[in-house]
């Protein structure tokens, strides 16, 4: 049983560490950059200064009474205390965001990114959130799942006038719940969410109950319809999305989640896209502990390997990181773990390709048959073939043993005995002897058992 004091000081340590980690994660992400639209081969330039979204800095060195969450490739929004009220400043604005090296997208985000910065508060806090609109059209912000006065609900036209471009509105309410929530527009909602306006709103409990969370992650899956070669999501698309992201990044642009062996880890998921996302993680049992309705009673926690997140909901799961190694964390709708691909390409699987490349290659310079043995062969060629501007291959990722052949809603969760203090990537897992699948030179004879 850990004393409250130890817990608080540990929390502060973690807070400091987690804050550092959060900042590191943020700097891993290449902020709205002015990357050129050359093909996917060029590595991203060193992090440039982002074009100036206004930032409200946290004044004073408050000790945080909670383990701050880590928003991979993102950050938490700093706040200031003003007469006992926690004040935040959100700025809704167009952003050019790099989804992965080689792909930059014209999104609408908050404070320089999509999703917007995570708002963290504590049950009981009185919060004041200023919202400045720098979008080309009016907006509003709705606090999804938060119990508050009707007039603070953020539904444009119904509970408030719209926030016109250039205007700043202020929302104020007192938190009387804790859990995993979201914030998003409620004005031209379909379009503004399709363009990327959304963010986590985490309300920490005033009094912790249950096991200590050592590491707390926020992942926001989202879907986009971006014509290959273009850079702007098409908000009119209802079903045919082609780009799938975690926290506004697509694999291999997603930052890995790093955990120490033995830690209790919580992962919070939110979904404002047009379909559900069954998020799967390997190597562990995931216990579903919370929704955007609030914490699930412990006796009602249920185990999953894949946590389904319907649109308009959040889910949080917890596990103990007791299995060291490199694990994948991804949406199990397989197309969501791919980058852009054609869904109407003719199926050449299994055809006899003899002579085709010669004949057609003589008529079309550079032609090469694709997909006759599957799509893996394509990904091997994709690296050195001419590609489409601002588009990265559908399958990417180089692992220690070869191509990983993934994209989209895919990231890694690395569990190590020790992690560097500065949050640096520990590299690939070194598998202990005897714990790796290996090739058998002479397969044994099963005597007809097959």
């Amino acid at each position, binding site marked *: 049983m850990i004393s409250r004091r130890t817990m608080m000081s540990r929390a502060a340590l973690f807070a400091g560490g987690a804050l550092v980690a959060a900042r590191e994660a943020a700097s891993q992400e290449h902020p709205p950059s002015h990357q050129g639209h050359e093909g996917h081969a060029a590595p991203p330039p060193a992090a440039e200064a982002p074009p100036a979204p206004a930032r409200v800095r946290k004044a004073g060195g408050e000790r945080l009474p909670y383990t701050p969450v880590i928003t991979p490739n993102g950050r938490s929004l700093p706040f200031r205390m003003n007469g006992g009220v926690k004040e935040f400043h959100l700025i809704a604005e167009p952003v050019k965001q790099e989804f992965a090296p080689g792909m930059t997208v014209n999104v609408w985000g908050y404070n320089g990114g999509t999703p917007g910065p995570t708002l963290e508060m504590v049950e009981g806090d009185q919060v004041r959130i200023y919202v400045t609109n720098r979008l080309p059209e009016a907006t509003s912000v709705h606090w999804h799942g938060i119990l508050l006065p009707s007039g603070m609900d953020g539904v444009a036209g119904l509970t408030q006038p719209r926030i016109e471009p250039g205007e700043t509105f202020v929302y104020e309410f007192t938190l009387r719940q804790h859990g995993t929530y979201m914030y998003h527009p409620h004005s031209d909602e379909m379009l503004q969410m399709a363009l990327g306006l959304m963010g986590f709103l985490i309300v920490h409990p005033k009094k912790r109950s249950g096991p200590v969370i050592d590491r707390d992650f926020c992942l926001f899956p989202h879907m986009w319809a971006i014509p290959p070669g273009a850079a702007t999501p098409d908000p009119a698309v209802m079903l045919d999305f082609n780009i799938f992201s975690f926290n506004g990044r697509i694999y291999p642009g997603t930052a890995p989640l790093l955990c120490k062996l033995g830690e209790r880890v919580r992962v919070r998921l939110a979904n404002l896209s047009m379909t559900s996302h069954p998020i799967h993680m390997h190597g562990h049992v995931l216990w579903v502990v919370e929704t955007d309705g609030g914490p699930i009673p412990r006796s009602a926690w249920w185990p999953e390997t894949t946590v389904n997140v319907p649109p308009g909901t959040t889910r949080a799961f917890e596990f103990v990181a007791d299995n060291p190694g490199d694990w994948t964390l991804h949406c199990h709708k397989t197309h969501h773990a791919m980058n*852009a*691909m*054609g869904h*109407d390409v*003719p199926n*050449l699987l299994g055809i006899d390709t003899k002579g085709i490349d010669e004949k057609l290659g003589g008529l079309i310079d550079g032609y090469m048959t694709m997909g006759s043995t599957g799509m893996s062969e*394509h990904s091997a060629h994709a690296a050195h073939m*001419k590609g489409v501007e601002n588009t990265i291959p559908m399958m990417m990722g180089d692992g220690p043993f070869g191509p990983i052949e993934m994209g989209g809603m895919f990231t890694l969760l690395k569990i190590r005995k020790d992690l560097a203090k500065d949050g640096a990537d520990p590299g690939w897992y070194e598998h202990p002897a005897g714990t790796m699948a290996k090739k058998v030179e002479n397969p044994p004879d099963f005597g007809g058992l097959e």
Partner: protein
Amino acid sequence: MHGPAFARVAALASLALLGAGCASVDPQPLFDSLRVDLAGRSGIEASWARDPAGAAAAEEQIRSLVATELDADRAVSVALLANRELLAGLEELGIGQAELAQASRIANPSLGYSRQRLAGGGGTKVEASFAIELLDGLLAPRRRRLAAIELEALRLRTARLLQTTAADTRVAVANLQEVENRLEALVLLRDLDASAAEIAKRQHDAGNVADRELARHELRANESQVALTKARLEARGAREALQRQLGLSGPDLAWKLAKAWPERSAVEISGDGLERLAEEQRYDLAAARAGLDLVGQALALRKGTRFLPIGIEVGVSTEKEPDGARLTGPTLVLELPIFDTGKASIAKLEAEERKARRQLEGLVLETRSQVREAFDALRAARQLADFHRDVLLPQQAFVVDQTLRHHNMMLEGVYELIEARKEEIHARIAAGEIERDYWIARARLELALGGRLPGGTR
């Protein structure tokens, strides 16, 4: 009858002969002047094989021209040597030259002799006479002048015929080049559709597509083949059309055409003064002017002689009577314009002169209009050809390259890639048609101008 009477007759005859003038029947100098004119005006080399040596030289020239691929210039050279209509037209020069010579001759004198015997013996009567048509001789110089004008008009029309033959040859070459280039493109299109059908067949073999999908692809491939076959027929027709211009036969029929279009000249021809230039230098206009002049002079001649006797025959005759008496003296026969004072023939000539004037005016208007139209067509074709070369074709190539990139990333499939490439090839076909139109417009403008284009280089 002998003696001094005949001597006088003989003297008169030889005088007549001398007065006949010596216009030659050889058209060579006439052709030489035409050749020099044409070389300077149009840059084309006319030649006329008039004897076996000349024919052999022409044959050798043709053979060496045909030995390598023909382009427009070489085809024109061949046509000038072998086009039968043109060669027949050249022979007209000989006809015209002979007619000039004929016009220079005066009418032959007439010689008469009769011998009569008195019945019952007692002697013979002998008559001899010699006469020449005097008016014919007096008018010969003027008649000769008219014939000379007529010959000049013929020379000009022959020069025009050479230019027309050259222009028609250029048009036939351009048509053939376009269809030959189109054939190459249609072969590519057929091959692309055949490749698509082959891939569809392999998909079908692997169980990936249904019968109808395969049938659709094979149908497209077959239709491409039909288009190719039809174009091959068209090409053979275009070849024959050029062959008819060239006038070749035997082994020479196997001539080959250069497929590549010539470089368009960098210099753009200015439209200023083209109409005036055409009016000044076109051979058929000059011929029409000569024709008008001819009618005018004929009319003046007719008017000047309308009240003169139509015929004036002078001569000498001698008679020896049966009793030995000799009578000798001059003769004079006059044909008097009493019943026919030439009014009708003058009226006819006057009408013909007015008609010739109107025709000349019409030809001038038509010349100017032809020049305007041909220049406009040339300028438009040039702009379109440049646009295809500089904008359309590069854009098409860009689309194909981009589609290949989409294909490389499995964003689009092979059939879309094939369609993009086919579209590019169709654009090339369109560009070839514009190129043909350009060279045809150029030939037409040269013909409308009556000479090579000013300032521009071939």
